[in-house]
């Protein structure tokens, strides 16, 4: 039996929906706000901004992070920038254009109303972050500078050198720190969510594990926000930080929150290629580099000369050739597949022939080294540290890698999950990017959700609960969840097998990358779905976790995360198998046009696939939210 998904989209014309919502939303009197406790899990852009703003409003906020400090969240690694429809460059940008670009970039698999709201509040984000002191790049006159990003023909990206994510996160972290200092927020650092608690159908709190002592404890609240990031680390090798994981979202899923579009995972075109087998993670080189860098491979697959010795006539600038109007700024999914095809055909460069060139020699000749250094200096330095080559002299070598996950917890217009009282924000939800996210839009969405959406929608949800009792942590549901969590972690320690969690994670990642990566086929996905359960049962029998559960034990932390990645991996492959079309980052080889572009099937798949936990990820219940396009017109994307 499938559930009817109510997205709670407000009435009115698309451009009026958010104003209509705010006009009708229920409010909580300032004196009553302190009677409500809100838990925010995760302190990245979405979590820190939500926690700080909710505390400013007067709610009691408890914030949780597994990091040592709120400033470490992986939002910090975003390099290139943040989009906003300010039209400061006078180049024809508008809220509507940002909306259309985002819908089109997502290959018509996102919800119109949410995306339009995102474009609307994008302008407020820049104002807010500037007021907080984020040192965005400026023109000499003191006005804000912009650059362009993939999938857009206007310059709407605001940036702070190559450290935009860092500066925005520090802004949100500082605002959060102010509230911590004032007592509005209690921060629980080095504390990881291990379960959520649902009482009478409503989320009543969370169960956490203190990473320093192993102690399991409960926290009750009127509302819980999951701002816990994406699940790209299911691939083992990705650009995510080492500790990024799906556990919080997955545990919410297991308690009734539907998981939407798990197979929509983004492969970023510009990462440093893998250098050897022992590699632990991949490093992203900002997409902004494609503003000035030209992507090419040797025309002759057997060409082994150093890049600078290959003459112009023997180079294939394939993005400029295939997509002349967007050129090197074609969207991520398209650029990634183009690189993969050429590398698969043997045109790869570098010692393992597993990359393509990103060449700055033309930009250096045109602009001078100083300008290039000012724009990308820290990125060039980062590349040089990792690859041991100087990109001012020789082209960078890049290759696609897993980067961002568009899928996540299903949310309605209010960012509420299918469990009342439980919200999801930022990368943890599925809402705004459809099947492919545009560059510089992740920072925008995280801050939009945390600063400008949740504070309104949470108040609307809390108002009816005023002076009504909510379950406390001595409720049997909390006690039960705590004891299950204790059993789970002592269980990992007691298997006493032979393989480490990392070993299983690596093997899991290989299967997911091979069969559910950049190109997917029915046959491959079926193979993955037969191999995954076998590997998972081996995990449960042969895992080895050394040490104890009573002090810091990173091996034990990892075991819990890998366990959840296994279950998610199965759901991802199932979803990819079910979606018999190609759209955005989800490319099924069976469904492509004659010239190798994604072939959507709007008749049968213009919907969000939302899965309900049934006890077995292979048998999750599929529910569909039909996507209706009233303003944007369903069309085949063309970046030619």
């Amino acid at each position: 039996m499938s559930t009817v998904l109510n997205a709670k989209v407000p009435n009115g014309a698309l451009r009026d929906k958010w104003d209509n919502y705010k006009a009708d939303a229920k409010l909580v009197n300032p004196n009553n706000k302190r009677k409500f406790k809100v838990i925010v899990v995760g302190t990245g852009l979405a979590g820190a901004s939500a926690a700080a703003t909710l505390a400013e409003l007067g709610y009691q906020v408890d914030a949780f992070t597994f990091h040592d400090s709120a400033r470490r969240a992986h939002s910090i690694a975003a390099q290139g920038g943040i989009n906003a429809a300010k039209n400061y460059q006078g180049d024809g940008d508008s809220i509507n254009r940002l909306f259309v670009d985002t819908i089109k970039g997502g290959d018509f698999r996102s919800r119109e109303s949410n995306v339009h709201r995102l474009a609307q509040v994008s302008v407020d984000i820049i104002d807010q972050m500037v007021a907080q002191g984020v040192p965005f790049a400026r023109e000499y006159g003191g006005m804000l500078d912009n650059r362009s990003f993939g999938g857009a023909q206007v310059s709407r990206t605001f940036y702070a050198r190559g450290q935009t994510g860092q500066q925005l996160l520090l802004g949100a972290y500082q605002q959060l720190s102010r509230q911590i200092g004032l007592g509005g927020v209690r921060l629980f650092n080095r504390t990881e969510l291990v379960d959520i608690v649902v009482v009478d159908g409503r989320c009543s709190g969370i169960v956490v594990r203190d990473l320093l002592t192993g102690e399991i404890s409960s926290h009750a609240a009127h509302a819980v926000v999951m701002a816990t990031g994406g699940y790209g680390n299911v691939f083992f090798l990705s650009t995510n930080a080492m500790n990024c994981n799906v556990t919080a979202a997955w545990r919410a899923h297991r308690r009734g929150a539907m998981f939407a579009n798990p197979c929509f995972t983004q492969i970023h075109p510009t990462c440093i290629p893998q250098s050897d087998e022992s590699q632990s993670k991949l490093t992203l080189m900002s997409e902004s580099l494609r503003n000035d860098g030209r992507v090419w491979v040797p025309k002759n697959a057997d060409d082994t000369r150093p890049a600078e010795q290959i003459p112009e006539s023997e180079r294939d600038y394939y993005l400029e050739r295939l997509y002349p109007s967007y050129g090197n700024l074609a969207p991520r999914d398209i650029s990634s597949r183009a690189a993969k095809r050429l590398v698969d055909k043997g045109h790869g460069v570098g010692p393992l022939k597993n990359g393509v060139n990103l060449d700055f020699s033309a930009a250096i000749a045109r602009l001078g080294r100083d300008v290039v250094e000012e724009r990308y200096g820290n990125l060039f330095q980062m590349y040089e540290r990792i690859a041991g080559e100087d990109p001012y002299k020789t082209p960078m070598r890049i290759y696609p890698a897993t980067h961002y996950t568009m899928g996540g917890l299903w949310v309605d217009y209010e960012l509420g999950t299918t469990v009342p009282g439980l919200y999801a924000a930022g990368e943890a939800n599925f809402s705004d990017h459809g099947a492919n996210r545009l560059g510089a839009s992740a920072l925008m969405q995280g801050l939009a959700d945390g600063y400008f959406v949740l504070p309104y929608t949470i108040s609307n949800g809390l108002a009816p609960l005023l002076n009504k009792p909510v379950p406390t942590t001595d409720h049997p549901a909390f006690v039960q969840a705590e004891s299950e969590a204790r059993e789970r972690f002592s269980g990992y320690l007691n298997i006493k097998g032979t393989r480490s969690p990392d070993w299983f994670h690596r093997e899991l990642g290989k299967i997911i990358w091979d069969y559910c990566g950049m190109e997917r086929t029915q046959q491959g996905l079926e193979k993955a779905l037969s191999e995954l359960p076998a590997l998972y049962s081996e995990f449960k029998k042969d895992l080895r976790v050394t040490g104890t559960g009573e002090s810091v034990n990173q091996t034990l932390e990892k075991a819990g995360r890998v366990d959840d990645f296994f279950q998610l991996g199965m759901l991802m492959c199932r979803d990819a198998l079910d979606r018999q079309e190609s759209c955005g980052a989800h490319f099924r080889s069976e469904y492509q046009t004659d010239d190798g572009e994604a072939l959507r099937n709007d008749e049968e798949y213009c919907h969000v696939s939302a899965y309900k936990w049934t006890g077995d990820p292979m048998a999750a219940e599929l529910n569909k939210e039909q996507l209706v396009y009233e303003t944007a017109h369903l069309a085949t994307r063309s970046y030619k």
Partner: protein
Amino acid sequence: MNQLTNLKLKVWRQAGPETDGHFESYTVDKVSDEASFLEMLDQLNERLISQGKEAIVFDHDCREGICGTCSLMINGRAHGPQRATTTCQLHMRTFKSGDEIVIEPWRAAAFPIIKDLMVDRASFDRIVEAGGFITAPTGGAPDANLILVPKPVADAAMDSAACIGCGACVAACPNGAANLFTGAKISHLNVLPQGQSERYKRAEAMVHAMDDQFGSCTNHGECSAACPKEISLDVIAMMNSDFRKSKSKNRKALSRG
């Protein structure tokens, strides 16, 4: 790709905050020079687990030099031998076969050891909570281009704001002082027009929070040399200047900058 062989590691192991620690010796027979320093430790940890031993605990996360989570004194130097490089960006090609590598946690009283190589840097957060922000509640901000920030000012703010809060400055300082960290945050916010209203209050509050927890600066400059983001000592001068003014001027006058 080449292999390094026969590395001799001496690693600080400490079971908990209250227990005594000691150096433990390990030999790494073989590791690729393309591996990062932390990948070398990952491989050692895999081996320890396979031997039934507890893995070495160390903080790390982004592994691209921006989150500030990783630490480690490597052969006595914060983040190891390479300038402007975090431990996670350090690669084994910096070392050679047969090298002895001594690995310790950050050494500073304000960063107590939690376990093995992991320390508690919450003292940094306390400094920021005291005043390392601009009070700008969500919702009331004017249009971003109404606040003009000349490019050199934005650039100077960004130079200071590049701090990743890793704590290398404190670990490298013979006094365990946090002046570079605190000065960087004060300089970031105090040069910007948005930061003027709270300029001296900020400097005063942050310096007091710093002094409560950390040692005193005696201008060695080790902090800046160890800083993976090459934060300049100038930020300490600006902090001192603003702190001094915060004590000597009438507060109403101070609010006018």
